[in-house]
């Protein structure tokens, strides 16, 4: 049975899909078009490598589809997607080196520097942080995720997240100041 709802791609969204909360192809395409750019930006800043970010982004969407998540709440679906992506990033760094807490692209590591996207000051500042700090900052200040959501995504306790976020923010601010950026720039213009 076909409902009146139709995705931008022209593929009709079926009633069954809408009722069950599981995405059909059209619903997936709509969800993808709404979230993919932000997801890629998140992965790019977390990983520093554009092609790896694209690979993990596709894997994250694939796992979301395979999970059979039943929800009509787009916010919940998006939070779940970011949780999958966060786990993929964590797995990636764990596979590469056991000391996940260490920044993967410290100066003096030319093999990694070559793959890192250093086009912006923020990318440079982010690349000096530990992957977890990058993820935490991005989820909190770009995606606007709650502390509970971030803690769940990163496998941390909500109580300890506040202090960890504060420390990550302090480190990031230090790096930005080091690059000559001043506070409250955006509002002053």
């Amino acid at each position, binding site marked *: 049975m076909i409902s009146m709802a139709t995705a931008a791609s022209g593929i009709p969204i079926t009633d069954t899909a809408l009722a069950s909360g599981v995405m059909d192809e059209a619903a997936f395409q709509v969800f993808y078009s709404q979230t993919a750019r932000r997801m890629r930006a998140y992965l790019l800043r977390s990983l520093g490598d554009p092609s790896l970010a694209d690979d993990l*982004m596709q894997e994250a969407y*694939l796992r979301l589809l395979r999970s059979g998540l039943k929800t009509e709440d787009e916010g919940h679906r998006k939070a779940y997607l970011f949780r999958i992506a966060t786990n993929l990033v964590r797995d990636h760094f764990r596979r590469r080196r056991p000391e996940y807490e260490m920044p993967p692209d410290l100066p003096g590591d030319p093999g990694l520097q070559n793959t890192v996207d250093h086009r*912006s000051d923020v990318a440079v500042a982010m690349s000096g942080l530990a992957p977890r700090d990058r993820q935490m900052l991005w989820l909190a200040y770009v995606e606007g995720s709650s502390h509970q959501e971030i803690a769940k995504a990163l496998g941390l306790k909500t109580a300890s997240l506040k202090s960890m976020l504060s420390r990550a923010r302090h480190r990031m601010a230090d790096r*930005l100041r080091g690059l000559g950026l*001043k*506070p*409250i720039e955006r509002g002053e213009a």
Partner: protein
Amino acid sequence: MSVCPFEVEIVTAARDGSWTEALRDHAASCLGCAETALVVAALTEDVDAMALDDPPLPDPKIIWIRSRLKARQERSFKAVRVVTWVQRLTIVCLTAVAIFFGPGLRELLSGLGTLIPTAALADLPLLISGPTAVLGLTFIVMSLMALWNERSVAS
């Protein structure tokens, strides 16, 4: 750890530039909020810059097709797994039957053989007339089928 009560407002202002005098004054005197403002503004500008210079996204159709293929693969794997377990169970049952009831069956069948004229039995091939051989043959066929299934699942 206590969070500054102005933090939410500071984050919003740093994102969209909606600074008030009071917020500006607060950010100037609160180190945590000044850092928050700096980080949020930098990240927001970064997101905007990335949106301007964004290469095309991978086609969602490919992701969708890959997920369907994987789902189909998993379904067939599950179906084959059930068949394989049934076959294994059959093999175990047949082996048990062969071990526990084989001698008795042989005696029973040899007893039945006395009722049939010996000349008629002599005309039958040995393989068909021997019940143990029949059981053995079934066992071999089932084992080969189980092996074949295992290999097709693995590949």
